[in-house]
């Protein structure tokens, strides 16, 4: 639930833009929030530093945080880590894009039709619960060892999450709103376009956000185990093989930055585009 504070913060930002909160206090409050938020990360680095200095853990396994950050810097500037970062990001976005293009319309159709939903509910739940990694060998046989196998498997996993969430959003549309539109003379198509679409948007965004995180996980793992020569996953596995511990720790941190960043982008989009979520 590390998403909570970020979401609350964005919601507050939105409130400030709307002029709900005063502006006099919030500079000070924002500053204090940042201070508080940096306590955890700083403490982690401090403990890491001391643990390394005091050799609580053998130094071969735990490089100092300074060396780790240095390794990120050198890898970024001359070691091709930036390239790997972009490759992983690009693969994640491709699989996410495929998942969204197929997941959203299908989710709407499935959610709007109780019979279709009931007949595929078990399948969706089953494959959603099946670890995507268990299907690696199958996808390797089907799609080979190239980029497409990695993207396909991540897209598959993300697609199910999106499909499920969109369908759920449509099914839970407020009946009163649909009735209201009907009384006003809206056709089925207009109800679909003007009411159901917006009604399912909040849940759709939950699905999209979960899906992009899942796609990243699957892509990184795929880069480790399905052949290939770039990507953060590949760099992590290479660091392990060559026992380059600073690079291993550094790449893990960079992967974290990527995951967190994607989440933040989606949360921002969500609070901007679905401003009514949870408030109506």
């Amino acid at each position, binding site marked *: 639930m590390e998403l909570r504070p970020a979401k609350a913060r964005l919601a507050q930002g939105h409130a400030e833009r709307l002029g709900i909160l005063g502006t006099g206090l919030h500079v000070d409050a924002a500053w204090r929030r940042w201070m508080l938020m940096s306590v955890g990360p700083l403490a982690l680095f401090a403990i890491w530093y001391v643990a390394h200095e005091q050799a609580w853990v053998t130094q071969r396994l735990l490089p100092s945080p300074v060396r780790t950050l240095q390794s990120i810097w050198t890898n970024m500037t001359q070691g091709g880590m930036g390239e790997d970062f972009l490759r992983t990001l690009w693969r994640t976005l491709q699989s996410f894009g495929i998942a969204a293009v197929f997941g959203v319309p299908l989710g709407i159709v499935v959610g709007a039709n109780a019979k279709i939903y009931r007949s595929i509910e078990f399948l969706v739940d089953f494959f959603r619960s099946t670890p995507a990694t268990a299907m690696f060998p199958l996808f390797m046989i089907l799609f080979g060892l190239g980029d497409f196998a990695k993207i396909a498997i991540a897209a598959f996993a993300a697609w199910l999450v999106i499909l499920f969430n969109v369908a759920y959003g449509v099914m839970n549309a*407020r009946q009163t709103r649909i*009735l209201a539109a009907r009384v*006003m003379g809206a056709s089925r198509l207009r109800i679909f376009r*003007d009411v159901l679409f*917006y009604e399912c*948007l909040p849940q759709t965004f939950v699905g999209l956000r979960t899906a992009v995180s899942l796609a990243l996980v699957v892509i990184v793992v795929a880069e480790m185990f399905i052949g290939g020569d770039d990507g953060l996953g590949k760099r992590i596995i290479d660091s392990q093989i060559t026992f380059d511990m600073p690079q291993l720790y550094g790449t893990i941190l960079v992967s974290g930055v990527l995951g967190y960043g994607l989440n933040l982008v989606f949360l921002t989009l969500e609070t901007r585009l679905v401003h009514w979520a949870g408030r*109506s």
Partner: protein
Amino acid sequence: MADLTWFTPGTHITVRGLRKSFGGNPVYVGFDIDLPKGRIVSVFGPNGCGKSTFINMVAGLLPFDGGEILFEGKTIRETRIGYVFQNYREALFPWQRALDNIHYPLKLMGVPRAERNRRIEELVAGFDLKFDLHRYPYELSGGQQQTVSIMRSLVIEPEVLFLDEPFSALDYEMTLIMRDQLQKVLIARGTTAVLVSHDLEEAIYLADKLLLLTRRPSRIAEFLDIPLPRPRSPATLTDTEFVRIKAHALEVFQTAVRGS
């Protein structure tokens, strides 16, 4: 069955032989009534007697098992209606500003923008608004949201307006204000209105005619005239005639609760 395309002058809604049951439980077994044109009719009765069922069937939101409902000889499809829901929070579109919510039914009717603006301006003039229509529904209070909801239903100049317990989610102070607002607008426009209320005081205060229903299967316990002068004000509530009507209606209601 009588030919309903013929209707008594002054009658707007003609209901004949209305039948409805839920899972084998009859709620209406051959219900007949004439609702007058340009008047406000309140529907009141014991819990679960089918007050909301009645207006939902008349408004075309709920199918019925048998019988006929006509509006000056026309069907519901040929009639322009407005409907105000009890739950304004779930009836308004939170993704649109209040103003766009009011625009929406006109857009559905294909009214051009300039004409829409003109009509809404005219509508706003009849209301005593103390809030900004450019806000989103969730930024407004309950009373303000229900006001928007009422405006949305009135902007198309409906022939009939249905209101299902419109003020029951509001506090008493707001209810008093909203009643007067609604009375003022409906009288000014001469719209036929059918209001369901679970509050006898409110039902009488707003109505020209009070329809008292029995327990299910619902029959007419009494269809009372409310000859109190308009405009009514909170002082009306202590008027001797008001008090007399209320006492009588309460007696009918209690008989209806005990009876059948």
